[in-house]
């Protein structure tokens, strides 16, 4: 029981507080910044040459203000905002007018989830295994070359790396193996036939490759360093001095202790990986949350942006909570005081 009281409940409280703080920040940003979203929207309408008599303009402003939920004092707006949130109603998108925001999000979400989950899993597992081996055999040649490659790839931001892959594999400059844009070829209907799946895989190959390589490089480097440090720990040296066979030392002594910081590392970097995924999608115009965000920014679709940001905050913090809760399963020092 002490475990629940000492580890679980504080974590849950922190989770709720973080989500609340995130959403409150998102609530206040448009209201604090100097320019008013309604005027911005009116500006965009007028830019498109909509000529209106003066009387109609006030009506539009009133409707927009009401639709943005900006009328009344900040506290009324705040409660109304949370009220809508609990019903999962993010309001209506301006650009694709009749479509509700959460409808748009639910179409884009599977694409992003598919890309994000697979690449994160692959890069974490592959990165850790290769990093672990490279750390254990750090004197071998191959581990040094891998480390050098890692040193080059790791500092590159998602955006630049994705762009480099695009130039290399998709554009006319070098190879032309992969499509430049899109999630599927034009006009493909989403059915579960093999043809459609093959088409999706073919299109998502480059963004997935980009995310996996970058994520893999990060995990490779951190795991290599952790394994080198754990290898120098007293209990590993003592096991070697005690004549414990090498396979037991690698599995039960080094890997199991090296994984612990990697789990917290994964939790802390999920936010970063998610942002990276969004950017990579934009570069490859892959039809996930990233493209949705890109279009909503271009068209100043205020409600859609709010929806995406809130959805992402809740999603990411929940994922982090789940990863954090798996940590005690691996570390007895947390389970039993």
């Amino acid at each position, binding site marked *: 029981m002490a475990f629940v009281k000492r580890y679980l409940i504080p974590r849950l409280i922190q989770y709720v507080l973080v989500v609340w703080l995130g959403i409150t920040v998102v609530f206040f940003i448009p209201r604090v910044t100097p320019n008013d979203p309604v005027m911005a929207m009116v500006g965009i309408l007028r830019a498109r040459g909509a000529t209106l008599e003066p009387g109609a303009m006030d009506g539009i402003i009133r409707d927009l203000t009401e639709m943005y939920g900006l009328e009344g004092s900040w506290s009324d707006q705040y409660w109304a905002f949370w009220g809508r949130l609990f019903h999962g109603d993010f309001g209506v998108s301006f650009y694709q007018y009749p479509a509700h925001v959460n409808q748009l999000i639910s179409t884009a979400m599977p694409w992003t989830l598919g890309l994000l989950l697979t690449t994160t899993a692959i890069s974490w597992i592959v990165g850790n295994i290769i990093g672990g081996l490279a750390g254990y055999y750090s004197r071998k040649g191959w581990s040094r070359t891998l480390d050098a490659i890692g040193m080059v790839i790791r*500092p590159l931001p998602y955006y630049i790396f994705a762009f480099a892959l695009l130039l290399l594999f998709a554009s006319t400059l070098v190879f032309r193996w992969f499509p430049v844009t899109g999630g599927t070829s034009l006009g493909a209907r989403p059915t579960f036939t093999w043809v459609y799946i093959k088409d999706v895989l073919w299109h998502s190959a480059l963004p997935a490759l980009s995310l996996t390589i970058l994520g893999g490089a990060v995990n490779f480097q951190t795991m290599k360093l952790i394994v080198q440090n754990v290898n120098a720990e007293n209990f590993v040296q003592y096991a070697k001095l005690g004549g414990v066979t090498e396979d037991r030392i690698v599995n039960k002594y080094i890997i199991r202790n090296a994984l612990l910081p990697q789990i917290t590392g994964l939790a802390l970097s999920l936010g970063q*990986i998610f942002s990276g995924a969004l*950017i990579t999608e934009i570069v490859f115009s892959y039809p996930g949350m990233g493209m949705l965000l890109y279009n909503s920014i271009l068209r100043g679709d205020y409600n859609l942006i709010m929806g995406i940001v809130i959805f992402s905050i809740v999603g990411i913090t929940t994922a982090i909570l789940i990863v954090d809760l798996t940590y005690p399963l691996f570390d007895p020092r947390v389970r039993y005081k």
Partner: protein
Amino acid sequence: MKTIRDLFRDYRFLFSFIVLVIILIMAILSAFSPYDPTLWNVVPKELKPSAKYLLGTDSNGQDVFWQATFAVRNSLIISLIAGLVSRVIAILVAMVAGYRGGTIDRVLMFIGDSLLVIPLFLIIVMVAMMLRKFMNLVVLGLLLSFFGWAWDARTIRSVILSLREREFTKTAVLSGTGTIKLVLKEYMPFAMPLIFSTLINNIAWAIGLEITLAFLGLVNLNIPTLGTMLNWAIYYQSILLGRWWWVLTPVVLSLFLFIALYWLSVSISEYLDPRTRIQRVGAA
């Protein structure tokens, strides 16, 4: 300086030093540019790189090389502002939280942690969207600095916490030194190297983010930076139309800049303490 001589033995430090010197020279060259960066059609459009135009010209009728010098200068300005201001915030938060302790420590660390956990990119995008009309180099720098202190405040705070337990803190207190003087005289020599290598990481992070925001069109597009240059290159479909020199210049420049900055911070922190390497994930 013996330390500099030791550092140069590390090939990474050597490489990053050379690249950074080249980039600084380019930034300084911008002052001697024959063309005004904001004017268009000053040179014939879309010419391949030649003796006259080192890196060719672009579809806006600007010389790509001189444009690049301005881009590098402005990107550095933004990231320096972001880096330095966020250092000040990080140090203040770390000092107060680390030295004062108690509830302030818990509150500050909670804010720091939630900034780490929440996908900052989206919030920065939202704020940038709202400030689009006022966006210029300084505003963007300050915006990035406001979100860039959380991770480093935590690292610096842990250094201060460990120093507070060390016995020379007690010796200093017994020698009658006041709190402020104690922090500056006793802790700064320890924290300085860490602050410097986190500054470099933050600069790389800021440049990367500036490029991303520029691609999303959230920055003032007629102030040339690495990001806006790339944005214009894509806007004119220079990839498909084969004008590789226009799109490659910002990509290659930022590629080398990121690698150089990362290697600089890694070689410094490894020189200080081989066991701890700065774990920052590459710029978003």
